[in-house]
C-alpha cells in the first residue's frame, strides 16, 4: 500500500510540473487551431502523443534493468541539473531580473511566426501548422516524461506520478476548452518556483541515496530539503530585487 509521505511529493511534483509544460504546449496548439482550424492541431497533437507513447513503451521496461542505486544516482543528478535550473530562472523572474513568462505574448509571437512561415513556404499550410503543433507537444511532452520518470522511478512510484501528470493534462485541457484562449492567468512562475523546489529536493535525495547516504527520517527528509531550497530561492529572489552596487 502506498504511503502518503512517499507518494505525495511524487504525485504533487509530477502534477505541478506537468501543468507548466502542458500550458506551454496548449498555447501553441491553440495558435494552430486558431489559424488553421482544429484538424491540423489535433493531427499534430495526436501524432506527438503517439511518438511519446512509443518512447514510454520502448524505454519504460529498460528502467527495470538498471540497478536501483545507479538509477537513483543518474536520475538524481539529472534532477539537480533540471530542478536547480528551473529554480534559478524562477528566482530571477521573481526578483524582476528577467521578465515573467507571458502566455498572451507567446500566443501573439507564435501566431505571427506561424503566419510568416505559412506565407513563406510553398507546401501545404495545414501541414506546416500540424508540424508546429506536433513539435510543441513532443518537446513539452518529453519534459513531462522525464519529470514523471525522475520523481517516480526511484521508489516504484511511476504509476502515481503518471496519474499526477495525466490529471494535469486533463485539467489544462478542460480549462483550455472552456476558456478557449491562452491560459495566461495560470501563475506560471509560482508553479515553476514550487516545482523547481520539489525537483531540487528530489535531486538531492536520489543523488544521496545513489551515493549510499541513508537520510535520517527517510522520505520525510524530502520535506526538509524542499523547505531549505524554498528559503534559499526566496532569499535569492529578494536579494537580487534590490539594486546591486558595483564596487570599483
Amino acid at each position, binding site marked *: 500500500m502506498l504511503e502518503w509521505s512517499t507518494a505525495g511529493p511524487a504525485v504533487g511534483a509530477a502534477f505541478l510540473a506537468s501543468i507548466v509544460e502542458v500550458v506551454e504546449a496548449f498555447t501553441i496548439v491553440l495558435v494552430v487551431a486558431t489559424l488553421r482550424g482544429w484538424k491540423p492541431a489535433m493531427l499534430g497533437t495526436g501524432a506527438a502523443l503517439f511518438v511519446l507513447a512509443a518512447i514510454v513503451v520502448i524505454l519504460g521496461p529498460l528502467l527495470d534493468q538498471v540497478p536501483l542505486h545507479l538509477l537513483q544516482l543518474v536520475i538524481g543528478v539529472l534532477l539537480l541539473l533540471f530542478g536547480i535550473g528551473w529554480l*534559478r530562472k524562477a528566482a530571477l523572474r521573481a526578483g524582476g531580473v528577467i521578465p515573467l513568462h507571458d502566455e498572451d505574448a507567446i500566443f501573439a509571437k507564435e501566431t505571427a511566426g506561424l503566419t510568416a512561415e505559412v506565407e513563406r513556404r510553398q507546401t501545404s499550410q495545414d501541414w506546416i501548422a500540424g508540424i508546429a503543433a506536433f513539435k510543441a507537444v513532443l518537446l513539452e511532452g*518529453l519534459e513531462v516524461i522525464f519529470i514523471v520518470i525522475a520523481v517516480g522511478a526511484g521508489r516504484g512510484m511511476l504509476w502515481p506520478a503518471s496519474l499526477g501528470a495525466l490529471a494535469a493534462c486533463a485539467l489544462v485541457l478542460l480549462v483550455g476548452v472552456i476558456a478557449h484562449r491562452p491560459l495566461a492567468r495560470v501563475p506560471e512562475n509560482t508553479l515553476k518556483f514550487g516545482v523547481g523546489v520539489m525537483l531540487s529536493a528530489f535531486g*538531492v535525495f536520489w543523488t544521496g541515496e545513489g551515493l*549510499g*547516504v*541513508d537520510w535520517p527520517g527517510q522520505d520525510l527528509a524530502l520535506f526538509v530539503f524542499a523547505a531549505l*531550497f524554498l528559503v534559499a530561492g526566496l532569499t535569492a529572489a529578494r536579494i537580487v530585487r534590490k539594486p546591486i552596487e558595483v564596487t570599483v
Partner: protein
Amino acid sequence: MNILKDVFSELFSMFVADARLTATILATVGLAAVLIDATSLPPLAGGLVLLLGCIAVLFLSVRREAKRRASPKSGSY
C-alpha cells in the same frame, strides 16, 4: 531532420541551461561522492555537503546572473 535537431537541442537545454551552473552542480556531486567513497567520514557528511553545496550553488548562481545583467557591459537576452 529539423524536428530531431530541435528535440536534441531541447533535451540538451533541459539539463545544460547554463554551463557554469551545470559544472558547479556536477563538481558538488563529485565532491560529495569523494567524501562518501574515499574518506572515513560517515556517508551522511557527504550528503550534507551535497545538500548545502547545491543550495549555495543556487544562491550564488542567481546573484551572479543578476549582477551580470545589471552590468552595463552585458546585453540582455
